[in-house]
């Protein structure tokens, strides 16, 4: 059942993005920024946690989960050590993705030649 929810959720998010892309002047950069903010907003009230519970990786893969993970790490740390935790914990959960993407893209940029 989780597979179906994962398919539906991830597909639905992509569908919304495609509709925005086709009908407005927004570029992919605008849309991804917008979706990150939406993901962070949904997690303020714990709604995105429900999506992750039911859709599993389908909710973890779209860029909305980046905002969700940012606020999740920040609030977890803020819960433990007070308002300072907001700055300390903000990258706790997303640092894996960012650092791997950085290291890999650096190595690949050194090894490969750009295609035109």
């Amino acid at each position, binding site marked *: 059942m989780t*597979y179906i929810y*994962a*398919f*539906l*959720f*991830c*597909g*639905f*998010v*992509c*569908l919304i*993005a*495609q*509709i925005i*892309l*086709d009908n407005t002047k927004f570029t*992919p*950069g605008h*849309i*991804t*920024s917008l*979706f*990150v*903010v939406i993901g*962070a*907003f949904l997690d*303020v009230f714990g709604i995105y946690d429900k999506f992750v519970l039911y*859709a*599993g*990786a*389908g909710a*973890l*893969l*779209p*860029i909305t*989960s*980046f*905002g969700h993970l*940012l*606020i999740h790490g*920040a*609030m977890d740390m*803020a819960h433990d050590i007070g308002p300072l935790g*907001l700055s300390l914990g*903000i990258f706790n959960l997303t640092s*894996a*993705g960012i650092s*791997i*993407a*950085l290291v*890999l*893209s*650096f190595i*690949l*940029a*050194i*090894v*490969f030649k*750009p*295609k035109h």
Partner: protein
Amino acid sequence: MNKNKYKEIVNRNTPKEECFKNGIIAFLVGGTIGALGELLLRCYMMWLNLPRKESGILVTLTFVAIASILTALGIFDVLVTKVKAALFIPITGFAHSMTSAALEYKHEGLVLGIGTNIFKLAGTVILYGVVSVYVFGLIRLLTIGG
């Protein structure tokens, strides 16, 4: 030729974006990526005996790695022009923007080329994510208290 007539001709000759078809393709491809991620998550949980949270991070890393390598090989750009939103909305788009920026500015040098441009596109995601999290987090701390 007056302006109205010119506009008419331009409107007639610009290719119509096939919104409906694009939407269906985005839905199907995006959904497939989501379902594949879920399959991978189950596999990691079973094979490596990891808890659900860690497997989720590992799935994200797998997709980042696949997207980076496909971008470096030049395959990803071809795919993006076909399915658009289905590939830049999942985390693959984040990795793609970094790798493509690094490759594109490689000729300007290691520091001024790759170093300064690697966050060119991914930077907006991080910037607006962090700013919005600070705002929402402060609101939540002040109202609910954590």
